[in-house]
C-alpha cells in the first residue's frame, strides 16, 4: 500500500484536476495548492469520496484580500483534514473583484454554512448555491465589507481622539 502523504496527495490531484491546478507549494509542511475557483466543489467532493485519502473534515474556511494583485483580488482559503491519515491540505481560490463568485461547499459540509456567511460578511464573496447567504456578524444595514483592505479599522464616531498624540 502506498503511503498517504503530501506527494501522493498532490499526484492524485494533478491526475484528476491537472488543468485547473494553478500552483502547488509546501510551506511549513502543509500542502498548499491554488485552484481555479469554479472547480472547488468538485475537488473537495473528489477528496471526500477518494477511497484512500478520505478528506472528510473541513477545518477552516476564510477569505483573504490582496488589492494589489489585479484579477486575483479576493480569495477563499480552505483547510481540509483527513482524520484517518492525519493529513491536511490548504486550497486557495482567487477571484477578481468584480466577479467574486465561487461555488458553495455547503452541499458537502454543513460546517461551511456559517463560515461562508462570515466570508461573505467580511469580503463580499458570493457563494453560489448557499442556502441562506446573508450577513452573520454585522448588522444587516451595513453597506460595505469591512475586512477589505481599503476600509478603516477604527470607529468613525469617536471625537475624543487627537491624532497628534497617536503619531498619525
Amino acid at each position, binding site marked *: 500500500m502506498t503511503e498517504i502523504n503530501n506527494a501522493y496527495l498532490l499526484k492524485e490531484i494533478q491526475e484528476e484536476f491537472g488543468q485547473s491546478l494553478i500552483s502547488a507549494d509546501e510551506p511549513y509542511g502543509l500542502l498548499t495548492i491554488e485552484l481555479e475557483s469554479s472547480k472547488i466543489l468538485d475537488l473537495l467532493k473528489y477528496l471526500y469520496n477518494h477511497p484512500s485519502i478520505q478528506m472528510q473534515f473541513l477545518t477552516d474556511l476564510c477569505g483573504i484580500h490582496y488589492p494589489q494583485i489585479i484579477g486575483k483580488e479576493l480569495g477563499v482559503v480552505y483547510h481540509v483534514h483527513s482524520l484517518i491519515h492525519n493529513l491536511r491540505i490548504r486550497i486557495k481560490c482567487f477571484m477578481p473583484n468584480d466577479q467574486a463568485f465561487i461555488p458553495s461547499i455547503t452541499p458537502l459540509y454543513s460546517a461551511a454554512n456559517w463560515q461562508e456567511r462570515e466570508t461573505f460578511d467580511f469580503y463580499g464573496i458570493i457563494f453560489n448555491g448557499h442556502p441562506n447567504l446573508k450577513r452573520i*456578524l*454585522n*448588522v444587516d444595514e451595513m453597506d460595505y465589507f*469591512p475586512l477589505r483592505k481599503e*476600509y*478603516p*479599522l*477604527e*470607529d*468613525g*464616531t*469617536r471625537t475624543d481622539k487627537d491624532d497628534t498624540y497617536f503619531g498619525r
Partner: protein
Amino acid sequence: MSIQLADAPPGLQGAGFFATSLDKAVGLARANSIWPLPFATSCCGIEFMATMASNYDMARFGAERLSFSPRQADLLMVMGTIAKKMGPVVRQVYLQMAEPRWVIAVGACASSGGIFDTYSVLQGIDKVVPVDVYVPGCPPRPEQIIDGITKIQELVKNESLRRRNSPEYQALMASYGIE
C-alpha cells in the same frame, strides 16, 4: 456570627421614637436591597460570575436577588463589550426598567469601547443610555465590581425623592431621546 446592620440615618431620637426625613429612610431601604439586572455579554460577565459566587459573594451588600427581568430591576449592570448590533437591545432593556433606575458600566468596553476601537463596537454605552458609575478594568477584579456597587449604593442612599422629576434629570433623559 455577627451580622452587620446598616447605620441609621441622622435624625431626632428620644425614648421610644426616632424621626428622620422620608427620603433618608427610603434611600436607606433602597440602597441595601438593590436588585441588579446582570447584562453580561463577555469576559466581564465571567468576573461577575466570580463576584456572585462563594468567594466574593455580592449578596453581602444587599444585592442578593438578581433580577433577570428588567421590569423588577433597579440597577442595570452592563458587563462586557456592546457591539453596535447590541446597542438597541441595551437601550430597550433600559427603557423597560421602572424608575428609579441606575446604570453601572463594568469594564473598559462598556465604559468606552476599551481596546476595541473598531467599526463594529459601540464606543461606550453612555452613547445610548445614561450611566451612573463606571468601573475601569479589562476585566475589573471582583473587588472592583463590588466597589462599583457600593458607589451605586452611596448614590442611591443620597438621592432626593424629587430628583427624577427635576428639570435637570428630564433634560438628561431628553438628551438620550427618552421620554
